[in-house]
């Protein structure tokens, strides 16, 4: 390069490059150097502009506030719209009251409860005799009671709830996950648009679901020996995970890739969407990809 070699017209340069560029092969050495430099500049697997990591208590609190805001907008007749199973919106909130009462009891030292649906049915049916506003108030009271109880508890201590034992911090993310899924059940029942969790909540939900995914895959009978799928969750709060379908902890190259929006993946985990309705784009082995997504849905409680 010399001082006289001034750049020429950009359009001309681009035109020449477009015409001839693809005929040039970059060397393997350059490829390796570029990939190494990129990995040093930004860690693979982590989403760009990843949201801040918030505590399980904050995830739970935000879920409660979101649902509270939604319930406050419902008209009297919307409370009686069919929502889930045989429950109308009011019954579904009653189910959440039952879950919350059970959770508060566990936080205070009671034994875990076996069945997520059966054990809350009484609380759900109880709402038939009360006004919707009273149901809303009861639910908010028990949810805020749970939040108050958390202030004195060690979030790293393992807690069992509905047969799942996890550090309380993670268990709260599962609780928030369930609350958001039912938040969207109410939205569907009342013709409202779906609203994804805020990025910080979504990032924690996605991280936990990815961690639990091998268990869901095993539970659904979709374990494949030696198979690894790359799960690419796009959008704010997403990230990239390599999931071993046999539960192995070793690092292996993925042969199948699933690309799906992070919030849509959470809807799959909540058993509200599946491979075809989530917009997931699969490349590689279709049956392995299906195994991952069916395994994800097996994490749902109801």
């Amino acid at each position, binding site marked *: 390069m010399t001082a006289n070699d001034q750049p020429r017209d950009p359009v001309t340069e681009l035109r*020449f490059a477009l015409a001839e560029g693809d005929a*040039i092969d970059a060397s393997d050495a350059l490829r390796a150097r570029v*990939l190494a430099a*990129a990995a040093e500049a930004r860690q693979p697997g982590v989403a760009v502009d990843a949201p801040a990591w918030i505590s399980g208590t904050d995830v739970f609190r935000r879920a409660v506030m979101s649902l509270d805001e939604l319930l406050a907008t419902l008209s009297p007749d919307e409370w009686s719209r069919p929502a889930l199973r045989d429950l109308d919106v009011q019954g579904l909130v009653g189910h959440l009251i039952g879950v919350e009462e059970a959770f508060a009891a566990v936080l205070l030292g009671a034994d875990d409860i076996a069945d997520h649906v059966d054990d809350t049915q009484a609380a759900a049916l109880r709402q038939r005799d009360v006004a919707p506003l009273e149901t809303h108030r009861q639910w908010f009271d028990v949810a805020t009671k749970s939040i108050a109880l958390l202030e004195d508890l060690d979030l790293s201590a393992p807690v069992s709830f509905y047969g799942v034992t996890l550090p309380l911090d993670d268990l709260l993310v599962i609780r928030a996950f369930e609350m958001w899924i039912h938040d969207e059940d109410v939205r569907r029942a009342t013709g409202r648009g779906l609203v994804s969790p805020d990025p910080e909540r979504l990032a924690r939900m996605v991280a936990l679901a990815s961690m639990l995914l091998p268990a869901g895959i095993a539970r659904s009978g979709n374990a494949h020996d030696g198979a690894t799928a*790359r799960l690419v969750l*796009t959008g704010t709060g997403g990230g990239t995970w390599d999931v071993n379908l046999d539960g192995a902890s070793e690092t292996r190259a993925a042969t199948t890739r699933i690309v799906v929006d992070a919030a849509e993946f959470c809807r799959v985990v909540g058993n509200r969407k599946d491979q075809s309705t989530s917009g997931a784009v699969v490349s590689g082995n279709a049956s392995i990809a299906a195994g991952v997504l069916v395994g994800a849905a097996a994490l749902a409680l109801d």
Partner: protein
Amino acid sequence: MLSSLAPSPIGTLRAVADHDSMLVDRLAAGDDDALKELFDRYSGFVLGLARRVTHNDQVAEEVVQDVFASIWSKPQRFNASRGSLRAYLGVLTYSRAVDVVRSDVRRRAREQRCVAEDVDLRSNVDPLDATSVADAVRDAIACLPDEQRLAVELAFFHGHTYREVATVLAIPEGTAKSRLRLAQAKLGVLLAPLRGEHV
């Protein structure tokens, strides 16, 4: 009917745009396989353009490295509604390559100036006069190539670590270290007279 089987240009463009968007979404999600695909698809184009502008294979490869590191670090800067990924990479490459050429032109001019000033440095600096020494150090730093001068200023004047220098300049930490090493070596030569040494 044969015509109905022919690909529609609009459909093809949309497919490319969708593919570009997904590739960039994957980059944003931290999928390094997407970067490999991006490199395998566009490195020839980027390298060819960088060579045309810089007329120097080694410098062109540095441009390629910068361009791919840039899109990996800031994929959200690509906006599919404003053009294809290929065009975006072309603009990035051209812009980076022109910067390199201009920087090279400036460096040559500065080096010529420094060769002349070196004579003054040798004869005029009093090693016991702090002001005189500070001026000489400042002049020597000004003679460094821009990228090395910036790294030196951040590290020595602002007290940043290697990692912080790398973050501020948006370059890998290894590159920051190598720029500082090169700068120190060059300053050693330029300031040798202050130590009573002859180069």
